[in-house]
């Protein structure tokens, strides 16, 4: 039986501007994330995908609701929870003052990795993401695709059990996107749970075990891509998605 890694219950997120409600970004969102699955958030821009993933990453707090990990709220032992999470944000937040290797060294140190473990981990990650030749280079020399690749590598320094990838392939050419897909699929093979935020439906279809369609801060549906396609009698996920949004608009 597949075990649950995270339970997200009744999440609300309201953004305020001068004490007035500016936006209801999430509205009573509940679902589970299973161990070793790739779980994707799909939605148009502004649907609440990034807000949701940043709450799971413990970057932002919800206005209401709880994220459970090991049947305890993550806010009860935030430090422990953060040790098992890796977050790859939409906007690259790499440290341009340091070269690639130094970026990984400091990231590993933040998580308390011993010198030997850190050396091994860095060697492994640079090799795995084919970044060996750039180890001593500054980040400026890397192309967009390589930077994104490196961002994922940095996310994995602490050997997380849950990796959150917020639109990891946005703006990249098809070849690089496919390469990144391979890396993401390999995470699953290693038993790591992946929360993927994307608005590329082909990407979600290829990678996801389950997809969660979000619109205006609400979950419309959660299911496997195959089940969605058969239930809605559509050829691909993109058609299902458009169909669902149309139905939602009618309601």
């Amino acid at each position: 039986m597949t075990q649950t890694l995270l339970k997200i219950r009744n999440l609300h997120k309201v953004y305020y501007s001068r004490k007035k409600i500016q936006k209801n970004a999430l509205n009573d969102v509940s679902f589970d994330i299973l161990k070793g699955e790739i779980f994707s958030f799909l939605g148009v821009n502004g649907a609440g995908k990034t807000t949701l993933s940043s709450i799971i990453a413990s970057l932002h707090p919800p206005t209401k609701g709880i994220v459970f990990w090991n049947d305890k709220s993550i806010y009860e032992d935030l430090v422990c929870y953060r040790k098992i999470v890796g977050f790859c944000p939409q906007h690259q937040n790499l440290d341009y003052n340091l070269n690639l290797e130094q970026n990984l060294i400091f990231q590993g140190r933040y998580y308390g990795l011993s010198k030997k473990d850190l050396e091994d981990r860095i060697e492994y990650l640079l090799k795995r993401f084919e970044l060996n030749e750039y180890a001593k280079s500054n980040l400026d020399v890397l192309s967009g695709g390589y930077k994104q690749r490196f961002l994922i590598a940095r996310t994995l320094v602490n050997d997380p059990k849950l990796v959150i990838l917020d639109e990891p392939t946005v703006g990249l050419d098809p070849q690089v996107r496919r390469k990144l897909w391979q890396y993401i699929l390999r995470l699953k093979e290693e038993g790591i749970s992946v929360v993927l935020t994307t608005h590329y439906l082909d990407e979600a279809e290829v990678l996801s075990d389950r997809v969660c369609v979000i619109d205006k801060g609400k979950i419309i549906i959660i299911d496997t891509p195959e089940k969605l396609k058969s239930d809605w009698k559509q050829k691909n996920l993109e058609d299902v998605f458009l169909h669902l949004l149309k139905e939602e608009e009618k309601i």
Partner: protein
Amino acid sequence: MNPSINCFFQLVRREVYLFFKSFLSRFLDISFVLCTWGIVFGYLMVNSGLKSSYGAFILVGSIASFGLFETIQRATCLAQDVTDNKIDNFLILPISSYSVFVSIAISWAINTAILTLCLFPLGKLILWGRFDLSHASWVKFALIFITSNLFYGFFALWVSSMVTNLRNISWLWCRIINPLYMFCGFFYTWKSVYELAHFIGYLHLLNPLIYILEGTKAAILGQRGYLPFWNCFFVLWLFIAVFGFDAIRRFKKRVDFV
């Protein structure tokens, strides 16, 4: 080691590491400033009728107020990191998000302290016999030195929390740094202002920098003529708490961290 403490230590370590990468250039910059002040106030102005001890007075003041000049650069860098979401990588580390901001302030304090310490022998070299250290209390100096650098760290953090628009930060110099600097007792003592007009003297007490300048001068040049050392010391800790608390409150509101 506790994961939070380790992470805190590593965050400070990173800032100090980056600081040392540009240490030489920054040391040269500030040495130029110190030499200029020392030559003008220690030698040239003395010939125009100023007391010969004024050079030492200004030199101690410039060493004590050096941290203030670092504020704008630091505030700009941190505000940029917040705007670009670069800070997000720190706010998901195994440490409370509040501590991340505290670590930034403390690493800034350490960096300022290192630079300032290097300036001290340089100041003595410039003024030599005109820089009389016979009244110096090194224990008091150590205490006020640590406190004032911590103050600059948290003050820079507070200023960073106020910077929202990086296209226009001239207000920072015009409205905050310059008035604080001009009325901090750099060119005069608090006592002289108090004797001139009690009200203006009391008004000066609202400026935290007056406690740094007066406290440092009291520790190095002797207590006579300056605000009581221990008053300066304790009031500075109060300011550190106020600026630190308010900076984190503002960042919490702006960044919306856990």
